[in-house]
């Protein structure tokens, strides 16, 4: 670690203390300390989350919403308490607006299958952006093929900035939905979603925001944003995998038919018909991911305990530092330089293909993501087959950025 790395200390955020919460960070990879720079794919878990899951299995586990015995009741309470934490985290108006799903992908599919099939028809338009993850493209392509809705694509600049002017031009009478990422998983671009929502609403369209990346870096207030749907995954938010969230405005969720049928989502059933359960259970058929929901509640507690603003400031410092250090490497090009971008740093190197970069730095204990990041249309737009991507989480340090930089310099030497 060099002198500059230690010179600036964030007064509000004690990263070394936070690191001690993540057991995995003490392990070594190929004999080197792990430098985990792949949190945008999935974040590591703090002891608080691991313990919350273990605690419920060891002490309070039973199926939820069906038993009158003690454990079923307490386990139900725990799961509903987690839902309430997530409501507060997003500042949703009502707890019933928080639907548990498996992940962001399932949340989007739910909206497409339920809201989309009911309210869209041939010729209606859905606006996506060039930056979308495949999970915010394919469900809408299903609808296009099934219903004949039309997908319009809002462009980004070469720097990766969302083009408001072009988006405004796409909006029109036929626009029924804008389904757009809050933050790009490749470019780090933060889309000015409050403006997007306002303009879309003025045009009479609904808005779904893909918050899979954004929720881990910036405070989200769904009421202030006034978005109609907001989706994210637990596993990127330092929570368990297998649990995700769909926020939807109550009036919309009420009007939507169930997504899957089964237990848990009904009020009364005969062989002739069924009545749907109240929100959010109407959308939660079958036994849910109980311990994972509780774990996600613990993750939200953990994040709020550290303070989202403090985490954001720490990550912004890391991103700036990394941008500066990587820029000094000859032949390295940073992909995505929109002002105000957040904690992911995609890049290419003249001397090596991203895949080779990934294999090499792994030997130095550095975990980065290489490939198209499930955003092939964006790769095509940027005329790239792949990038390497370092992404920063709350537990990363300037010293780790130095290790990344040194290992990339060594990559250049190796291939150069």
């Amino acid at each position, binding site marked *: 670690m060099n002198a500059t790395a230690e010179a600036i200390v964030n007064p509000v955020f004690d990263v070394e203390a936070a690191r001690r919460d993540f057991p995995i960070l003490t392990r070594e990879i190929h004999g080197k300390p792990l430098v985990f720079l792949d949190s945008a794919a999935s974040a590591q878990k703090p002891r608080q989350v691991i313990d919350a899951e273990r605690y419920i299995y060891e002490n309070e586990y039973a199926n939820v919403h069906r038993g009158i015995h003690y454990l079923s009741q307490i386990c139900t309470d725990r799961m509903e308490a987690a839902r309430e934490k997530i409501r507060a985290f997003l500042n949703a108006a009502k707890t019933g607006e928080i639907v548990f799903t498996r992940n962001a992908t399932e949340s989007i599919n739910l909206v497409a299958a339920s809201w989309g099939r009911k309210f869209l028809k041939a010729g209606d338009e859905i606006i996506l952006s060039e930056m979308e993850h495949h999970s915010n493209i394919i469900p809408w392509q299903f609808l296009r093929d099934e219903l004949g809705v039309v997908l319009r694509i809002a462009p980004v600049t070469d720097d990766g900035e969302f083009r408001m002017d072009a988006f405004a031009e796409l909006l029109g009478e036929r626009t029924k939905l804008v389904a757009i990422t809050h933050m790009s998983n490749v470019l780090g671009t933060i889309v000015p979603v409050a403006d997007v929502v306002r303009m879309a609403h003025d045009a009479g369209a609904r808005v779904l925001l893909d918050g899979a990346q954004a929720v881990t870096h910036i405070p989200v207030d769904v009421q202030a944003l006034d978005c109609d749907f907001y989706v994210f995954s637990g596993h990127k938010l330092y929570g368990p995998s297998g649990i995700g969230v769909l926020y939807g405005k109550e009036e919309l969720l009420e009007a939507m038919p169930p997504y899957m049928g089964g237990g848990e989502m009904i009020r009364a059933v005969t062989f002739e018909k069924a009545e749907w359960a109240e929100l959010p259970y109407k959308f939660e058929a079958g036994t849910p991911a109980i311990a994972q929901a509780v774990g996600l509640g613990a993750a939200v507690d953990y994040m709020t305990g550290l303070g989202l603003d403090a985490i954001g400031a720490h990550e912004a410092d890391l991103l700036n530092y990394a941008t500066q250090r990587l820029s000094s490497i000859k032949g390295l090009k940073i992909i995505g330089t929109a002002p105000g971008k957040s904690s992911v740093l995609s890049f290419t190197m003249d001397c*090596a293909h*991203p895949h*080779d970069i990934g294999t090499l730095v792994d*030997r130095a204990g550095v975990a980065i993501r290489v490939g198209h990041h499930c955003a092939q249309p964006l790769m095509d737009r940027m005329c790239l087959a792949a990038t390497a991507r370092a992404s920063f989480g709350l537990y990363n340090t300037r010293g780790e950025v130095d290790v990344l930089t040194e290992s990339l310099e060594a990559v250049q030497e190796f291939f150069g």
Partner: protein
Amino acid sequence: MFDDLRELYQEVILDHGKSPRNFREIDHAKYHAHGNNPMCGDQLEVFVETDDAGNITDASFLGKGCAISVASASLMTEMLRGKNIDEARKMFEGFHEMCTTGDDNALAGVGQEDADRLQVLSGVSEFPMRVKCATLAWHTMNAATKGEAGISTEDERG
């Protein structure tokens, strides 16, 4: 820093990766296919020309890829010349097995000189994520000789 990767990235591979041989199109080639590795975004095109007796007179490729996939494609095009299609397929099978199992005996059915050249890529067997990089050109060549338009190695997650 990367000394233990010299086994994977041998000099021959770095050389062919940097300056690929037969990196061009063959007009109206008898066999031609696209190969796609969605995992890393690699895309290759392989061209194979044969004479009337079915012997390979020329082989070439185009495309983008990592050092391993480009080097493997480059080496392959050099080695195909003079072989017939059956021999080419036999080489593919042996090479594929060597890459997946790391077993040098996999190349038993291939001539000694060729086997020695192919062995520079045997290091990939210890990098399961990179096996497809090494075999992409070969899969593509194999598909081309069967008259298939293209192949794609399986898709990526998340």
